[in-house]
């Protein structure tokens, strides 16, 4: 339509994305229109600035980390496929999917992958362990500036003490899963109920 050089999504692409992520047709088109509205440069990819333009994200304590999660290692642009691939983690878990294809790779929105996504947001240096410093950084972001370092430190210590089972004073992925087993329920509710308009 006119000057807006927005590329229309082709049917084959929609089919591919559907197979890869499991989103429905209408959800994909809706998310594509959101993608294009965020893409001010109109080059089919999003940069970090495009994300940072979202006002609510700026006040979100985890805003930067969430944005980083969209960009694969070392890259500065993300296309629609990558966008959808990240969002696919947040689809509701459907039990009948498990029976369909037991030999195929785990779907992106399985419980483990959801937890892995959350874990990676804590673990910035990707060493598969949440160290005390990384935990402190997250706590500092969530709690604000008024709390003293010592108090935050004791909270971090207690957190690690509760979760750490092998005594390395870091939280590995398995310990993370176990420590948040009640939170698993909340992981199941990680979903965007995209109404089919």
């Amino acid at each position, binding site marked *: 339509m006119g000057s807006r050089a927005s590329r229309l999504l082709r049917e084959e692409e929609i089919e591919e994305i559907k197979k890869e992520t499991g989103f429905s047709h209408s959800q994909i088109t809706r*998310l594509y229109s*959101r993608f294009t*509205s965020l893409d001010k440069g109109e080059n089919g990819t999003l940069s970090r600035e495009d*994300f940072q333009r*979202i006002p*609510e*994200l700026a*006040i*979100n*304590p*985890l*805003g930067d980390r*969430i944005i980083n999660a969209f960009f694969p290692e070392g890259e500065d642009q993300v296309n629609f496929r990558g966008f959808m691939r990240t*969002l696919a983690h*947040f689809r*509701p878990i459907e039990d009948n999917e498990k029976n369909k294809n037991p030999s195929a790779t785990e779907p992106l929105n399985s419980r483990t992958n959801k937890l892995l996504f*959350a874990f990676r*947001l*804590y673990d910035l240096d990707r060493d598969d362990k949440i*160290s*005390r*410093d990384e935990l402190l950084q*997250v*706590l500092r972001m*969530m*709690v*604000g500036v*008024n*709390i003293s370092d*010592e*108090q935050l*430190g*004791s*909270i971090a*210590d*207690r*957190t690690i*003490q*509760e*979760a750490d089972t092998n005594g390395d*004073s*870091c939280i590995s992925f398995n310990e993370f899963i176990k*420590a*948040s087993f*009640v*939170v698993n*329920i*909340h*992981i*199941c*509710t*990680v*979903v*965007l*109920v*995209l109404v089919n308009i």
Partner: protein
Amino acid sequence: RTLALKMAPLRRSSTLRLTGLLCLSFLVFFSRGFASHDVVSEKSSGTIQEDSHSQANSTAHKKTFPVLSFNYEHVRTPFEISLWILLALFMKLGFHIIPTVSHIVPESCLLIFVGLLVGGIIKATGEQPPVLDSNLFFLYLLPPIILDAGYFLPMRSFTENIGTILMFAVVGTLWNVFFIGGMMYAVCQIDAAELAHVDLLSCLLFGSIISAVDPVSVLAVFEEIHINELLHILVFGESLLNDAVTVVLYHLFKEFAHEQTITVTGAILGVISFFVVSLGGVMVGVIYGIVGAFTSRFTSYSRVIEPLFVFLYSYMAYLSAEIFHLSGIMSLIACGVIMRPYVEANISHKSYTTVKYFLKMWSSVSDTLIFIFLGVSTVAGPHTWNWIFVIFTVIFCLVSRVLGVIGLTAFINKFRIVKLTKKDQFIIAYGGLRGAIAFSLGFLLDNDEIKNLFLTAIITVIFFTVFVQGMTIRPLVELLAVKKKKESKESINEEIHTQFLDHLLTGIEDICGHYGHHHWKDKLNRFNKTYVKRWLIAGERSTEPQLISFYNKMELKQAMMMVESGSAAKLPTIVSTVSIRNVPTKGAPKPSRAISKSREEEIRRLLRANLQKTRQRLRSYSRYELLNDPLEDNISEARFRKQREMERRVMTEPLEIEPKCNKGVYQTVRGLSILHQNRFRTH
């Protein structure tokens, strides 16, 4: 030893027998107490007459001074009330001492049974047993239970399932009302039943009374089976929120039955009235909640009366809603929910404990009394037993509940993330217990001939649900292997991850441009933090992040547990300033805490000297005897201490005290500051 072992079972059975005998004798004693008051009152009035008579006759005759006189009349009412409450408490105690029975039969059944016994005994002595007065029930017995439930409502699971709960409460109850009312009208048309005088409106009125799920019964039964939180909150939430529907429909049909006509305007007004009743009730509760929270900001000046504020504001919310025929239950719940986070931040720890235990105590007593009275009223009330009416009522109640749950779940599951399975549906349907609210509403009807018929049916349904469903739900839960409540300890991990996930999901929703559940919750939290908390929470706690208050609460709990278990051994994180267990990943050297021996000796000397000098003067400062009482009643006092410590450290530099103060004071203050400085150093 074998002899002792043989004696043990004998002794146990004799203890049981003794306890049973005691209970029975208490029962007889109490019921005689209630029944004999009439006799006693006659006697006392007789004595009074005699006295005046004798006085009038012989004024000159000196009356002997009564060393011991008997006047029961003027303490009669409080005495009887206390007797009833004592009976309830003994029954409650008795059931827990005799474990075998309470394992099979839920407490509510036993209490109704006791009520039947007491009522029977009273009736056997020829007296009229007291009936559960609706006023007494609605104004005194019901509010504590609802407040207890509302104040400790798990907000997170409640708000997550609010859609489902509302669907069940509103649509489910409406379905029940019309289904039962309609079907009972059809039944009344059968000639064999001789119920032709019961018209459609009365049937619908009956339907509106009987279809509401009762929170008291649900609480009583569900509490004992420890079912998982989702099912508990669904059934319980439904029982709370359907009050609005019940109130509206009850008054509506009562009006219609009076007028004997249904008008379209009436129906429309009914719908409007529903919104007014429910939202109005909630608003009244919110207003009282905010006022209560604001008041608690200033109660630091008189800590002892703090719990009373909580109770009174909530009770006033209930009563104010009842003035306007709004939903008192929703008002009470709203008040408790709104007030709680702010009040808890403001009141002292002791007041918090008081509030918690008083609520539990009152609701427990109320609950017991309600069931006992239900039993007594069954024996008392005039009954009109009509086989067909009663049996069909029970059948239709069950059928409509099952159909309603199945139908609604099929619809709701389209929107739910965690779908409700067939097992869940069964428990929800089976947990639809009726209780004392239905009875009291029925009691308020005024037409005598139909009223007894309805009351009998209501009581039968209540008995059926409480006895049959109440007793069988526990084995069924075991049989169906329904998920039980997870015995999860509160953990800081969980709190951190929950908040982390909330932020994450809000962020994702914002990226997608989707204004969903998390978006609005985040906005509400932000609003709460910037504006509301500042107004309603006193002092610096208003800016305290949720994580910190959670952590402090946990630490306090751990400290209490530690003291109660008698071991002060492992205290990982209660050290305030330096984290001893600081194990950094890079292997940095531990911070040294060693104080040289000479320094220690010097400090000891200073302490001793100053302590002796200032002991007399410092009685008012005894609050600062910190090390003797590790459990301050208020965590803010710990913070206060920390602050003071900082101040003292600054103050030990040249003290600018006005020369007017005498030397003694100067020395005292100086000594005190050194005392504190050294105390905290040797911590």
